[in-house]
Each structure stands twice: as structure tokens, then as C-alpha cells.
């Protein structure tokens, strides 16, 4: 009886596996095979000798990588920008979400939302063009109109490092504030309206309601989203750091992140070993951070933990 039942179960698994097969095959090739490719980080890769024929060189790639100034710069930039994005981005998203909620009228919410989501639909290439329209030295809006009006000498933006942290953070906010506010809006709409009504009857002003009800009720969402972002803190948005500064070498000190470094190593310098080492450094630290962040999320709220 049990044998028959088992057999039945197994036979019902096969067609389902077959349906899942194309997806499984794709993930195996696209995601799993490259995981085994991390051994490239321990090889002195040579195109003529190929992937398997190239000589092993132990930890040399890592030794060289961490001796360079680049290793420090890219790690610092990746971390600092992500911290700035998490803090400023979260505050901005909550600010917008609270205002949106106060609008009340659905049609009005939809109208503002469409506009604020627009930048999120644009590619980093197009955003690079938009930033270029503002910043390019000869015909840019800032040099030609703003600085001229203030009687300030034109600035060569794509070779001056100082303003770039500011520019990149503003660009990030511009692209993501709308989409990030959606999640907070959803949580605010989830708050029981009776609480606000009761507070209002007790004479609480709108400001008091926001600071005493809305924000405290958002706390779990804020904590979870922040922890999830901390799990991704070793990864950067390649497009933001590659397209927006137009890949300008003079800006690397403030724009180079791990992702752009790996790209340069691989495509421009053709230094496979070094970029593979940097990529592995990112994957491993990133993996540990995700695990750590998830462990923390589990402590706060089991429901929202990834696993």
C-alpha cells in the first residue's frame, strides 16, 4: 500500500519537474556555473591557455589587489555611498509617503505618483544624458545659466571631484524617491484609521499624529527595509557610478565602487585575475552581510525574514 502510494507520488512529480526544467536549466547555467568560476580568482589567467589551462597563483591576485590604493578607495566609496543612500533615501521616502497619505484624494495621489515614478523608468544611460545637459562644461545649464548669473567662473564638472558625492546622492534621490515611497505608503495605509480618529477626538494636531502615531507604526517597516539594504551594502548601482560621471577617470577617487572597478579590470585592463579577485571579495563579504542582516531581521520580525 505504502509502496504503491510512494510510486504514485513519484510519478506525479515527474511532469511537474518537466515543467520546471527550462527554468532550472537556466538558473544552473546563468547563476550556478559562474559560482564555480570563482576559482579564476586564484589563477593567473591567460587567454591563450584558457580557463582550465591557466596557471594557479594562490593568493597573489588578492595580495596585489589589497596592496593597491584602489582596493581602499572602492571599498570606502561603496560603503559610504550606500550609508548615505540608506539614511537620506529612507528619510526622503518617508517624508513623501506621509505627505501623499495626507492628500487623501486618490486621483491626486495617483497624479503625483505618476510624476515621481517617472525617473525610475529611465535607464542610467538616459539619466547620464540628463545630467550631462546640466553639467557639461561648454553648453551645460549650470555653467551657462546658473554660474553666469552668480558671476562664478565656469567649472569643469567632469574633472572636479569635490561636488560628485553631492551630485550622485541627488541623482540617486531623484531616481528612487518615488518608488521607495510606495512601500512606506502601503504601510501607512495599513494603519488602523480608528487610531487617527481617536487621536483627533482627543485634540491631537496633525503634526502630533504623524510623530506619535504614523512614524512609530512605521518602525518595523523601516527596520526591515534598512536591514535588507545593509545586506546589500557591498553592492552598488553600476549605472549610477558608471554612466552618470560619464566614466571619467579623473573622478575615480570619488566615483569608483567595487562594481565599476571589476568592470574596468575586466573590460579595459583585461586583468582577469585581479577583477575576479575583486568580484569574489564582493560576493563573499556580500554573502556574509546578507546572512547577518537576515539573522537580525529574524530577531525583529520572523515573518519578514528571508529564511
Amino acid at each position, binding site marked *: 500500500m505504502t509502496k504503491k502510494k510512494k510510486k504514485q507520488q513519484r510519478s506525479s512529480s515527474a511532469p511537474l519537474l*518537466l*515543467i520546471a526544467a527550462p527554468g532550472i536549466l537556466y538558473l544552473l547555467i546563468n547563476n550556478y556555473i559562474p559560482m564555480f568560476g570563482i576559482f579564476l580568482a586564484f589563477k593567473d589567467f591567460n587567454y591563450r591557455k584558457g580557463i582550465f589551462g591557466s596557471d594557479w597563483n594562490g593568493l597573489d591576485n588578492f595580495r596585489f589587489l589589497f596592496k593597491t590604493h584602489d582596493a581602499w578607495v572602492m571599498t570606502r566609496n561603496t560603503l559610504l555611498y550606500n550609508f548615505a543612500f540608506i539614511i537620506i533615501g529612507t528619510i526622503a521616502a518617508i517624508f513623501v509617503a506621509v505627505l501623499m497619505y495626507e492628500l487623501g484624494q486618490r486621483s491626486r495621489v495617483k497624479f503625483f505618483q505618476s510624476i515621481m515614478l517617472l525617473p525610475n523608468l529611465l535607464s542610467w*544611460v538616459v539619466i547620464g544624458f540628463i545630467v550631462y545637459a546640466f553639467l557639461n562644461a561648454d553648453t551645460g545649464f549650470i555653467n551657462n545659466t546658473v554660474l553666469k548669473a552668480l558671476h562664478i567662473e565656469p567649472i569643469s564638472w567632469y574633472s572636479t571631484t569635490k561636488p560628485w558625492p553631492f551630485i550622485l546622492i541627488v541623482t540617486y534621490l531623484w531616481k528612487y524617491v518615488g518608488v521607495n515611497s510606495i*512601500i512606506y505608503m502601503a504601510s501607512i495605509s495599513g494603519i488602523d484609521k480608528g487610531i487617527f480618529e481617536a487621536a483627533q477626538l482627543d485634540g491631537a494636531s496633525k503634526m502630533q499624529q504623524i510623530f506619535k502615531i504614523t512614524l512609530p507604526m512605521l518602525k518595523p517597516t523601516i527596520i526591515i527595509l534598512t536591514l535588507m539594504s545593509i545586506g546589500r551594502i557591498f553592492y552598488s548601482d553600476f549605472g549610477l557610478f558608471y554612466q552618470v560621471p560619464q566614466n571619467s577617470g579623473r573622478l575615480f577617487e570619488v566615483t569608483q565602487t567595487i562594481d565599476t572597478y571589476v568592470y574596468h579590470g575586466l*573590460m579595459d585592463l583585461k586583468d582577469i585575475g585581479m577583477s*575576479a579577485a575583486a568580484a569574489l571579495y564582493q560576493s563573499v563579504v556580500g554573502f556574509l552581510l546578507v546572512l547577518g542582516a537576515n539573522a537580525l531581521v529574524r530577531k525583529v520580525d520572523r515573518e519578514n525574514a528571508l529564511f
Partner: protein
Amino acid sequence: MKRHSRDDGTNFRLGSTIILSVLAFLILLPVLLVVIASVTDENMLIQSGYTFFPAKLSLDSYYYMIKQSEMILRAYSVTITVTCVGTLVSVLITTMLAYPMSRPKFRYRNALAFFVFFTMLFNGGIVASYIMWSRIFQIKDTIWALIIPNYLVTAFNVFLVRNYYVTSVPLSIIESAQIDGASELTIFFKIMLPLAIPSVATISLFTGLIYWNDWINGLYYLTDAKLFGIQNLLIRIMNNIQFLKVSSNVALLGTMNVDLPGTSVRMAMAVIGILPIVIIYPFLQKHFIKGVVLGAVKG
């Protein structure tokens, strides 16, 4: 007391509307600058740069693009083909993978879920995958380079569809079909795939947007400009501008293969890169927002 609080509410509503209007205006402004720049007279541009109030307007850059339409139309057709094929295949494979994971009695349900989930935690990095695609699969300078690497199946989309099946499609539908003697394949293609349409709409939108906006695959795997989609064409144009500025070698101009567009034409190119999205998006906003909320609740 009551009156006071109502006034407070109205004031707040007014305040919110004003602040959001200012924000919305600031967000639109950069896009507006590009659109205005694209219809600014070329001589005015050289004189006074990109401005919001140009002294003279002209549609020259759009006429220029019509004249150069071969290059642009080709890029458009590449982007449209890649977006359609990529999205279609992606949605099909993703749904096929998500459906078995939603069946409570499926033997490998948990193993499969972990298999998909692990790709969110760890990856081999771009170097290994670049070498795999370019050396083992020889994907460089083929249209497949724009479709296959990276985007076809993402764990995020798989879980989105699986959760939809688990929460919104009753098992009794499958059971009654099984009693009627339908095979698993029939059940999936005739019943479950059509039932997944609300979640399919969301992932199609996400995936379509990714393919339309993708330039990274092109950057890694294409050297042949014939295969450039609209995004990679934009990158090429921007690079040529930078290149000319640096070299300041006039003789090089003659040897360049790609015609160098004027200052306003560049912005017109950016505009036609945005246009299709801006036109289609308002109809799909609902699905987009739903997807963002769903994704945030459970990745």
C-alpha cells in the same frame, strides 16, 4: 475643539499639496530641460547653452534624425525585438518554474525553492559569468547576448508568481481537473497559466522595462554597432563626443564612422529613448505599484 482639528486637517492637506507640487516640479524639471534642449536652435545652443527659455526654437534635430533614420530605426528594432522576445520567454519560463513550487504535494517543492532562493544570496560575480558566456557559449556579437544573460529568470519574479498561486488560486481547481483526467501539462498550459495573468502582468512589466533599459549586456558583449539597441547607441554617441573633446584632432573627424550629431540632436536622441516608456507607462502604473508592494513584503 472639533472645528480646530478640522481646520488643522485642511491646512495640512493644502500644505502637503503645495510641497508635493514643488517636489513633482523639481523632479520633472531635468526631463523638461532635455526636451527643450532637443527643440532649441543649434546656434542658440552654442551661444547660451541648454536653457529652459531658449530664444529660438527649431525642429532641426528631429529632421536630422529622420534623415539619419536608418541608424535609429535599426536600433529601435533591435530594442523592440529584444524586449518582446526577452519578456515573452522570461515570463513563460518563470511561470513554469513558479507553478510546481506552489503545489503543496510536489516532492521537490522545498528543494526547488531553495535552489531558486540561493541565487539571491550568492553569485559568482560578473568575471566568471562574462568568461562563461563569451568563451564557452560564444555569445559575443550575437543578438542572444542581449537576451539570454542575466535577466531571463530572476528569483524575485519566480517568488512573486509562486506567491500569487499560493494565495490566490484555489487548489480545488487543480484537483477537479485531475479528476477529469487532465495531464499536468494540460493543467498548466490550459488552466494555471491563464489564471496567473494578474501576476504575469506585473512581472512582464518589470522584465519589459529591464530589457528596454538594458545597456549592460550590450556593453559587455557587443562590439558590432549593427546590433546596438537604442541604449547602446546613446552610449556610443556620448562616447564620441567625449572622444572628440579630448583628442581635438580635426583630422580624426573624417575617419569616424559614426556621424557626430549636433548638440541638440544628442538631446533629441535621449528624448526618443524615453518616449515609448512615457507613452505606455500611465496605462500600467497600477500593476507597477502592485508589484513593488508585493516585492517589498516578501522578496
